[in-house]
């Protein structure tokens, strides 16, 4: 088989067919600020979209991966909705939990529908996607990113209070989620219009780590369905990200019907990766699952190669697999380790 472009490689595997080799996409997102030569704070602020585009494009040349994921950090949406965010120079931006936007149940009413194209940071992500798509949209997979409304809202209320509100005061939470979901829907559409081939929706709380299936369905099921149906209707692919433990693949299938899930752990209804491949491998493609901390960051070259080889052996047959870290590539990890992941895909992931 002649060598495919990265985009063809990714598209083929997501159709559960075998491309020339296993695609590799080690989710080098925030770490790209180091390639662009700007501080993490400058990168996350969205003030310099040219640097963000350059960071990703140079990252592709340097590391050789097959796709770009347009995650800046998880605070983008919350910030635009009004949450105060702290931007450390050398660390991931985060909400100021000492000053939550939603301090009382009444404050949920302050959440209003936004036009993402008229915001600060969501707009910068849209511009970044457009800039990347202009340069490599025909050769590489470009995946947009939307942090799900449950995740965004938890950043604006503080996770503990938010989780308790879900049970104690659902009538206060639901209208706010609806306003937010309208915005996120427009945001996802705008990402596709900007050139994303897929939009990745982070449904972190759809896992045993956090919520019961019933509670997750009640608050996020219908909205994720509408968003994912819309993305599909626009001709783009639907992907999900969830780095929680025991992900509800059945719920994900029921409500989002995704082409792929980027994940770090197996589904809640299987025991081990072989069983996961057997049960879910032909239905939902896996993007994963190299452990970011112990392997991508702390692993020796041999350990990284061994991990990649083992994952390829379990998951590559029949396509439906992209070799990646189970969560974002650690922003402070050696960049050479990301290249080793790509090299391992080339060495062990060739289909014959």
């Amino acid at each position, binding site marked *: 088989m002649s060598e495919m472009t990265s985009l063809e490689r990714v598209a083929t595997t997501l159709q559960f067919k075998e491309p020339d080799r296993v695609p590799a996409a080690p989710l080098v997102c925030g770490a790209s600020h180091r390639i662009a030569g700007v501080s993490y704070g400058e990168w996350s602020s969205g003030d310099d979209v040219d640097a963000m585009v350059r960071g990703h494009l140079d990252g592709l040349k340097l590391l050789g991966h097959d796709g770009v994921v347009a995650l800046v950090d998880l605070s983008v949406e919350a910030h635009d909705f009004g949450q105060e965010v702290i931007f450390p120079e050398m660390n991931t931006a985060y909400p100021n939990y000492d000053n939550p936007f939603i301090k009382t149940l009444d404050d949920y009413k302050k959440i209003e529908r936004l036009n993402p194209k008229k915001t600060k940071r969501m707009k910068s992500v849209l511009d970044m996607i457009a800039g990347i798509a202009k340069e490599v949209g025909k050769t590489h997979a470009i995946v947009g990113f939307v942090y799900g409304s449950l995740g965004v809202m938890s950043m604006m209320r503080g996770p503990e209070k938010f989780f308790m509100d879900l049970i104690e005061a659902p009538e206060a939470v639901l209208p706010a989620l609806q306003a937010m979901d309208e915005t996120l829907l427009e945001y996802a559409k705008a990402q596709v219009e900007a050139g994303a081939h897929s939009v990745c929706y982070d449904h972190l709380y759809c896992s045993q780590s956090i919520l019961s299936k019933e*509670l997750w369905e009640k608050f996020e099921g219908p909205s994720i369905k509408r968003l994912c149906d819309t993305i599909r209707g626009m001709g783009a692919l639907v992907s999900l990200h969830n780095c929680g433990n025991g992900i509800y693949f059945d719920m994900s299938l029921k409500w989002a019907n995704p082409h792929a899930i980027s994940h770090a752990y197996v589904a809640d209804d299987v025991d081990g990766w072989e069983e996961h491949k057997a049960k879910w491998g032909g239905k939902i493609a896996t993007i994963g699952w190299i452990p970011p901390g112990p392997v991508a960051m702390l692993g020796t070259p041999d350990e990284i190669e061994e991990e990649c080889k083992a994952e390829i052996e379990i998951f590559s047959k029949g396509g439906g697999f992209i070799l990646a870290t189970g969560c974002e590539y*650690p922003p402070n990890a050696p960049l050479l380790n990301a290249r080793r992941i790509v090299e391992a895909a080339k060495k062990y992931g060739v289909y014959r």
Partner: protein
Amino acid sequence: MATAKEMELIKRLQDAVINYKVADAKKTAEEAVAAGVDAYTVTMEGLAGGMEVVSQKFDTHEYFVPETLLCAKALYAALDVLKPHIKVQAGGARGQVVLGVMQGDVHDLGKNLIKAIFEASGWTVHDLGRDVPLQKFVEEQLKTDSDIVMLSAMMTTSMVGIKKLIPMIKEKNPKVKIMIGGAPITEKTVEEYGADTTADNAPNALREAMKMLETLRKGKAA
């Protein structure tokens, strides 16, 4: 042996915690104080007993984070009433821990669940909060002579501080045990950073702490 009244109050406290009935928990605790029953007994058997059931439900995925947080809310509502009436020495039956989230990290959900479960089980918890400077852990351990220091990190950027912190703590007190936890932490991190153990959730953290405390106390007795 507990009296009939104590037994009734214990059962009601257990039910209030398990079913996350905050008002019931507070009211029952007030009744217990008014009745003059032993506050330590109803705390340990009622609140801790209830929280033990909650831990089991969490382990078996009957309860998740929201339910467990609400159980902890009920627990604290009662504990706030009972605590001033408990006549035991700090760190008496169980041990003492210093607990906090590493510098640069504000993810404190797991840390707070651990605090609730440990306090319910009779441990004295010195909670330093989130985004804690490294030196603060060292100072607090020395000040309180705690048996265990528990460090939480949810990001690789904050996790790296653990590598620096453990020698700082051990230099001042080589016997202290260190437990680390959070999303990026694995057995490999424990080994590489020189920690003593890790746990992937609050009930497991309690089990690990009990084991370490037993080891420490055997060492002291020998």
